[in-house]
C-alpha cells in the first residue's frame, strides 16, 4: 500500500536509557534470578530500545521479603511523614516531567502532547492529593454509654500486590501506589511487560526519598512473575487493572487466600448526544463534537474509551458530519513530534487485534464512516503500529458495539427517545464510563442516574482529576480509585471496644 508522507515538526530527542534494567527490590537494583532479560520494544518504530529483567517466583519472593521488612516501620510512620514522602515524589516527577513524558511516549507510543499535558501532570497531582487527604483523615470514636467507648481505627492491610496495565504505565502505577503508601501499606508492583521501563526510571529518581522496600518493582511475564505475586500467601491484597479473564483468575487465587481484591476491568462506554445538543451551532455544539472525537485520545487505549456514540436521529446528519470532519483532521505522526495528535498503538498485538476488529466490523455489515485501515506512515515509522481513527455506523448488537477493541475505533448508532438511549447505553456487560451531552437541565440529572456506570461525564469526557471517584459497575470491576475512598481498600478497621466501668457484669 502507499504510505502517508509526514509533514510535521521534528521529533524531540529521546531520553537516554540504560541498556537494561534490573528489578527494584528493597531500595536496590537486583539482577533477575533467571539472569535473563527481555527486549522492550518501542511502538514508535517496533524496535527494542532497552531490556527489562525477566522476573520469576524467586524475585517475587525477595520483593515480598523486602516489603515485609519495610512494613515494620512504614506502617508506624506518622501521617505527616508519609505525606512528606508522597509530596517529595510529586516534586521529583514535576522536576523531571519533560524527561518522563518523553520516556513514557517511547515506552507506550502515545503522543508527547498527551504525556506532557495529561499522564505526567496527573501523576504529580495524584501523589499530592493523597499526601493531602491523609493529613485530614480521621478515625472515628463513639460513646455507646457513659462507660463504654468504641474506637474505630484505621490500620494498613500490610504488603499488597499491584498489577499495572500498559495503557498509562506511570499514571496507572500512580493510581495504585499513592493510596497504598498513604494508607501505610508497602507494595510489590508488577508493571506490564509491554511497558516495563518508565516506572524503573521513576524508581531511579525517587529511590533516595523512599525508605527501602516500601515500593518494590518486579518486571516480567504474567505467568512467571504476575502469578507468583497474585497467588502468594504473603500479600494482603491484590489490585489489578486489566481484562476479565485475568481478573477472574486473580479473584480465584485471592479466594484461596481469602484476601480482598480491587479490579478495574473493561468498558464499552456509551457517549450519548441528546437532541438539544444541536439546538444551536455554537461553542457548546463544538465542545460536544470534540466530546465525540475523544475516542481517539490515547489511541483509544483507555478502558473508558467512548467507543459507542448514541446520537438522536434528528441531529445525526448535522452532528456526525462535523464529528467525521474533526476525526479526519486528527494529525497522526511521530509520537515525539510536538504537533502529533495521535501516536502509535502500544504493541504489535494491540495493532493486530484492532485490525482484526476492523475486519469483523466490516464482515458484520457496519458502515465505515472514516478510517477503517492502518495508517501506513513513512519517514521511519513504517514498522510502527499506526491505525487511522475509525468510525463505524451500525447497531448495538454487533460485536464491534459490544466488545472492547481498545483502539481508535468508535461505533455510532441512533435513538428516537430518551428511554431508547438509556436502553442501548445499558445493553452491555460493562459499566465503567459514559458520557451525556444535553442542554436540558432535567436530562442532565435524570439520564446519568439511569445509566449503569461508575463514572458518567456530563457535558465533558475523559477528565480524570484526583478527588472524583473512578471505578466500575457490572463487569467493569469494583473499587474506586482517584479518591480518598481508595484508602479504605488498603486498610482495615481496628475496633477497640473499651469499658471504663469498674463494676462487674454479675454473670459469673
Amino acid at each position: 500500500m502507499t504510505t502517508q508522507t509526514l509533514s510535521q515538526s521534528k521529533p524531540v530527542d529521546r531520553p537516554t536509557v540504560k541498556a537494561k534494567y534490573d528489578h527494584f527490590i528493597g531500595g536496590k537494583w537486583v539482577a533477575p534470578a533467571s539472569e535473563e532479560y527481555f527486549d522492550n520494544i518501542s511502538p514508535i518504530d517496533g524496535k527494542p530500545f532497552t531490556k527489562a529483567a525477566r522476573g520469576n517466583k524467586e524475585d517475587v519472593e525477595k520483593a515480598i521479603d523486602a516489603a515485609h521488612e519495610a512494613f515494620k516501620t512504614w506502617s508506624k510512620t506518622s501521617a505527616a511523614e508519609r505525606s512528606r514522602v508522597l509530596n517529595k515524589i510529586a516534586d521529583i516527577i514535576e522536576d523531571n516531567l519533560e524527561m518522563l513524558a518523553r520516556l513514557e511516549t517511547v515506552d507506550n507510543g502515545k503522543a508527547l502532547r498527551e504525556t506532557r499535558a495529561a499522564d505526567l501532570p496527573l501523576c504529580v497531582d495524584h501523589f499530592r492529593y493523597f499526601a493531602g487527604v491523609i493529613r485530614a483523615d480521621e478515625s472515628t470514636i463513639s460513646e455507646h454509654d457513659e462507660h463504654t467507648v468504641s474506637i474505630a481505627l484505621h490500620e494498613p492491610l500490610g504488603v499488597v500486590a499491584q498489577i499495572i496495565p500498559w495503557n498509562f504505565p506511570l499514571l496507572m502505577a500512580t493510581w495504585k501506589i499513592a493510596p497504598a503508601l498513604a494508607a501505610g501499606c508497602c507494595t510489590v508492583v508488577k508493571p506490564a511487560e509491554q511497558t516495563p521501563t518508565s516506572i524503573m526510571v521513576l524508581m531511579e529518581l525517587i529511590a533516595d526519598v523512599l525508605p527501602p522496600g516500601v515500593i518494590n518493582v518486579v518486571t516480567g511475564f504474567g505467568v512467571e512473575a504476575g502469578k507468583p505475586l497474585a497467588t502468594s500467601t504473603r500479600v494482603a491484597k491484590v489490585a489489578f487493572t486489566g481484562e476479565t479473564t485475568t481478573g477472574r483468575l486473580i479473584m480465584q487465587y485471592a479466594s484461596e487466600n481469602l484476601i480482598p481484591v480491587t479490579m478495574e476491568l473493561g468498558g464499552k462506554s456509551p457517549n450519548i448526544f441528546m437532541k438539544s445538543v444541536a439546538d444551536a451551532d455554537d461553542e457548546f455544539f463544538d465542545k460536544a463534537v470534540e466530546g465525540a472525537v475523544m475516542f481517539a485520545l490515547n489511541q483509544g487505549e483507555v478502558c473508558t474509551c467512548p467507543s459507542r456514540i448514541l446520537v438522536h436521529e434528528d441531529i445525526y446528519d448535522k452532528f456526525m458530519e462535523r464529528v467525521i470532519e474533526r476525526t479526519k483532521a486528527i494529525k497522526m505522526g511521530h509520537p515525539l513530534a510536538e504537533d502529533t495528535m495521535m501516536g502509535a498503538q502500544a504493541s504489535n498485538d494491540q495493532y493486530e487485534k484492532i485490525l482484526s476488529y476492523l475486519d469483523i466490523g466490516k464482515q458484520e455489515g457496519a458502515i465505515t464512516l472514516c478510517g477503517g485501515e492502518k495508517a501506513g506512515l513513512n519517514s521511519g515509522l513504517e514498522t510502527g503500529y499506526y491505525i487511522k481513527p475509525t468510525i463505524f455506523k451500525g447497531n448495538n448488537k454487533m460485536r464491534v458495539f459490544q466488545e472492547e477493541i481498545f483502539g481508535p475505533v468508535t461505533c455510532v448508532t441512533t435513538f428516537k427517545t430518551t428511554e431508547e438511549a438509556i436502553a442501548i447505553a445499558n445493553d452491555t456487560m460493562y459499566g465503567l464510563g459514559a458520557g451525556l451531552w444535553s442542554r436540558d437541565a432535567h436530562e442532565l440529572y435524570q439520564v446519568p442516574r439511569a445509566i449503569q456506570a461508575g463514572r458518567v461525564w456530563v457535558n465533558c469526557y475523559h477528565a480524570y482529576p484526583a478527588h472524583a471517584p473512578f471505578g466500575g459497575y457490572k463487569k467493569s470491576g469494583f473499587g474506586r480509585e482517584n479518591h480518598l475512598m481508595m484508602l479504605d481498600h488498603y486498610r482495615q478497621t481496628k475496633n477497640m471496644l473499651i469499658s471504663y466501668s469498674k463494676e462487674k457484669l454479675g454473670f459469673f
Partner: protein
Amino acid sequence: MEPIKRVLITEQAKEVIDTLRKRFGTELMFHQSGGCCDGSSPMCFEKGDFKVGSQDVWLGEVYGCDFFMSADQFEYWKHTQLTLDVTPGRGSSFSIEIPMGIRFMIRSKLFTEEELKNLSPIKSGEELLKED
C-alpha cells in the same frame, strides 16, 4: 451429518500446544477473554488452573483442550466460528505461551445460515465438570 465445530485450530497452534504440554507436563485449557488491555485473546492455562462454572460456556474441545468463554460474551459470539491461531508477539496476561515470544489469537468468521442449523452442542462449565 457431522456437526460444525465452533472452534478450529491451525497447524502452528497445534505445535505450540504440543510444546506447552511437554513443558508443563499437563493437559491445557483455553478461556476466551473479553475486554480491556489484553481482552479478546484466547488464554491458555494448565487444565483446572482457571476455574469454570455455571457462567462459562464450553464450546468444545480443540486439539484435546477444553475451550470456554463467559456466558454473557458467548451471547455476542455464538454466530461466530473461531479459529485458534498463533502469532509472534507479547500479551500481558497470565496465558502460559507468552514467555515463548508468541501468543495465541483468534480469527473469526460468521457462520452461514446453513452452518447455524448444525452446530456442535454446547454446555456450561458446571455441566462439563459433572461429567468428568
